[in-house]
């Protein structure tokens, strides 16, 4: 067995007991990448030299004492929309080219200060816009469970890297499901924290009112550990909450007796893959058997979520992406005047999906359309949030499928953006409401593709969803299966 297969928790324990050095572990991860990433294509940029340097530093620190941060010496992968000082950051877009960030994102800074080793930057849909990682300007990433399938998106590179043991754990971002849906597709755990729980400073913005950083890991305990390391108030992010961060990893008690699980009827409807529904219902049955109480609930405005999301998110994106104008950094086309410089640079630099969303967002904010689209969407967004507030009076967590289907084939939906958008129907309401939610493996379909269960919590109650997910995970064997990195037809 390669050390690369270790979980964060296991690796940390071995490092602290000095059964394993960070250099050995990091070398094992890079060996695994050398052996298999030409099949998976999880990474856009590797930072081998810097990583080995960090590993040597971690080993020195590990010699000093046994009392160390959980991440010290552990190789971590970062989605390529985190700014990393001195390490190329592309957001999978040509418009950023070989952009070399002058500063670290707050979360990267926190990861570095724990002594973790940064392996490299993982692939994503350009500007995190997509559900399959196929919108990357560089190359698509494959699903380790079947290389002919998508890994999900937008954090597809991070999900595939975790599933294929190309890192010990990874960070992703989630604006409409971009952590949870790829986690479900790749059979790993992915957590989107409450909006405001983790700093957004230094994350390349897509939709500012929904973007959130979160862990993508091999099991639930690892997500708890990684969240502890990055969460908490950041004075550089006005929307980050000034709340103490619990020690999530110490709260995984396994106890779910009397816990009320809300099951929203609007989430179990036609259009979803039968095996997904069966697996999630079976998982709910298991939780009930283990002491949880099932409550049928209703989230009546669910059907509007996709429409609301694609108005609010594109409006914000159209403005957030205006800075990529070829003036100060990134791609600039040779052109005859200013207007042409803008037009050609942006035409050459952005991919089709990004352009589509910039146009949508520009349209919904335009004079004469603002009230009918943006303003109305914001009102419906409030209704969606109120649905959850009402539901959480009757339950402690809400359980749903993470995605309506398992991972589809590469190229299957690239010609149909609307079909692609529906991959996120179960995840986007949660971003609109700002709630925490995670995806945990709950089975496989007949083609051996992983299925994910989504557990949604109250605002800033990540502890409870982690506890439920951990309980479920420990009572199943799903997380112990490993992908074969083969093409299956």
């Amino acid at each position, binding site marked *: 067995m390669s050390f690369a297969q270790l979980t964060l928790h296991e690796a940390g324990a071995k490092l602290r007991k000095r059964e394993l050095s960070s250099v050995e572990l990091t070398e094992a991860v890079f060996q695994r990448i050398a052996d298999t990433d030409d099949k998976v294509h999880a990474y856009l940029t590797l930072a081998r030299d810097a990583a080995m340097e960090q590993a040597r530093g971690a080993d020195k620190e590990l010699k000093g004492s046994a009392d160390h941060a959980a991440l010290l010496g552990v190789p971590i992968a970062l989605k390529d929309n985190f700014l990393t000082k001195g390490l190329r*950051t592309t957001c999978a877009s040509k418009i950023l080219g070989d952009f070399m960030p*002058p500063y670290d994102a707050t979360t990267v800074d926190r990861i570095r200060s724990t002594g973790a080793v940064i392996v490299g930057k993982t692939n994503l849909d350009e500007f995190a816009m997509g559900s399959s990682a196929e919108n990357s300007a560089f190359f698509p990433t494959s699903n380790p469970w079947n290389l002919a399938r998508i890994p999900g998106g937008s954090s597809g590179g991070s999900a595939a890297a975790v599933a294929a043991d190309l890192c010990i754990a990874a960070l992703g971002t989630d604006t409409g499901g971009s952590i949870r849906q790829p986690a479900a597709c790749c059979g790993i755990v992915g957590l989107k924290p409450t909006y405001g729980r983790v700093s957004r400073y*230094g994350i*390349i913005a897509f*939709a500012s009112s929904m973007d959130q950083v979160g862990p993508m890991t091999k099991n639930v305990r690892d997500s708890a550990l990684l969240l502890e390391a990055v969460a908490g108030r950041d004075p550089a*992010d006005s929307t980050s909450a000034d709340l103490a961060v619990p020690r999530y990893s110490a709260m995984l008690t396994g106890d779910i007796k009397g816990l009320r699980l809300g099951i929203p009827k609007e989430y179990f409807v036609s259009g979803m893959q039968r095996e997904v529904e069966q697996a999630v219902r079976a998982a709910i049955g298991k939780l009930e058997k283990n002491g949880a109480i099932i409550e049928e609930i209703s989230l009546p405005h669910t059907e509007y979520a996709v429409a609301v999301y694609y108005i609010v998110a594109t409006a*914000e994106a159209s*403005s957030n992406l205006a800075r990529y104008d070829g003036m100060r950094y990134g791609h600039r086309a040779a052109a005859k005047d200013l207007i042409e410089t803008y037009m050609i640079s942006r035409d050459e630099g952005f991919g089709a999906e990004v352009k589509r969303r910039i146009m949508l967002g520009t349209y919904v*904010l335009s004079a004469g359309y603002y009230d009918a689209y943006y303003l109305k969407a914001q009102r419906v967004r409030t209704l969606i949030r109120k649905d959850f507030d009402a539901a959480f009076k009757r339950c402690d967590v809400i359980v749903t499928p993470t995605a309506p289907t398992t991972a589809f084939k590469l190229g299957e939906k690239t010609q149909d953006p609307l079909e692609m958008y529906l991959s996120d129907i179960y995840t986007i309401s949660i971003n609109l409401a700002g709630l925490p939610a995670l995806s945990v493996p709950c089975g496989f379909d007949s083609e051996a593709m992983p299925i994910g269960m989504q557990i949604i919590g109250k605002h800033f109650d990540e502890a409870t969803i982690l506890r439920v997910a951990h309980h479920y995970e420990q009572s199943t064997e799903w997380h112990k299966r490993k992908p074969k990195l083969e093409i299956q037809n």
Partner: protein
Amino acid sequence: MKYESVIGLEVHAQLLTDSKIFCGCSTQFGKEPNNNTCPVCAGFPGVLPVLNKRVVEFALKAGLAAHCEIARSSILARKNYFYPDLPKGYQISQYELPVCTGGYVDVELDGKVKRVRLTRIHMEEDAGKNIHDAHGDASLVDLNRAGVPLLEIVSEPDLRATAEAGAYLKTLRAMLQYLGVCDGNMEEGSFRCDANVSVRPEGTETLGTKIEIKNLNSFRAVESALEFEIARQIETLSDGGKLVQETRLWDEHHEETRPMRSKESAHDYRYFPDPDLLPLVIDDAWIAQVRAPLPELPNARKARFVNEYGLSGYDAELLTGRKDVADYFEEAVLAHANPKALGNWIVGDLFRVLKERKLDEQLYLARWPLAALNLAQMVQMIDQGKINGKIAKTVFDAMLDSNKTPQQIVSEKNLEQLSDLGIIEAAIDQVLAANPKQIVQYRSGNEKVLGFFVGQIMKATQGKANPQKVNEILREKLKP
């Protein structure tokens, strides 16, 4: 037909905070290009704005001084447009729910008070500067100014004449200077003005077609541009022409306004609330905290100068128009309680010096050419009869930039007034003996000759003779 003009002004006042509105960069003027920048104000990927608390306090100061309603919750919004000096592709400003609404400024003109209502005051960030023609074919961008905090102060269309607009601007500027929130320097661009102007037949209520004028960089430009534009509009209408709503640029060189863009080609700024910034919540405690130490404002100070010091309204206006001048005056009065004489020296001689040296264009004089204390002592010497008014002019000029007290100058130059009757009498006798013809003229009724004698006597005493004494003795001696 007689027309009346309707004018509203939009003022952009750069705030005197040490750091920018959304990052920690310095606001210092005149640094090397792009030295006062960081990833936040240069619009790098991933950056987020954090609102500078001082900017809010300055907005509150201005809002309270102008009797505005303070919004308990206000929204920062994005104004989207592309331009190289706008690094994020949007300006963070306020649109719906600005921090201050309503309010007014009382403006005095020709002894009458006019109340000019305000629409709103809001906070926003300044853009950088494009520099053309400095580097071959390329234009360069300096982002030092990007993110410098501004207040936009919008008046209602309450102004009816060019002179009113000028008086309003001066009053507003003085108010902001008194509050210490803006240095008011139009030439350096820290106090900028756009004007909205329309005309309508006198006695009608409907507003005419509104024209916006930009690029008004001085009080003179504001008044000249308005004069030009009002005349142009009246002429167009009188000739049966039609006006189109547009933005025009003031061309100082050619003294005319020229079309910049029409309403049809106006930008759609796609304003929406900035999701990176939470609504700005201002509670009563914060308002009270800002209100308590608000300084005495120009109008109040002017009234006090009239009542307390017995100055004319005109002199009080001149002395309180600038806070530094008013402070200077009061420092002098504290040292020597002759406000009228001190006021005259300041408004007359000192203002002349400031103008000659172009110091009147600077708004906060850190170093005066003449210390207030020295001016006070000089006036005291006059009042004590130690020097006369004429000698005082010499002393005044000698004190400029010298750091010397009037006593030092008087003794160095031996300028002390002659009151020794013996010496004065001797000088008079000498002058009379030398001019017998003029004595005859005087005695035959030509009183004017007296001035001639005084002049000769002053000359003989190097101007130091006490003029009162000279007069008395001379008249006595000339009696037939």
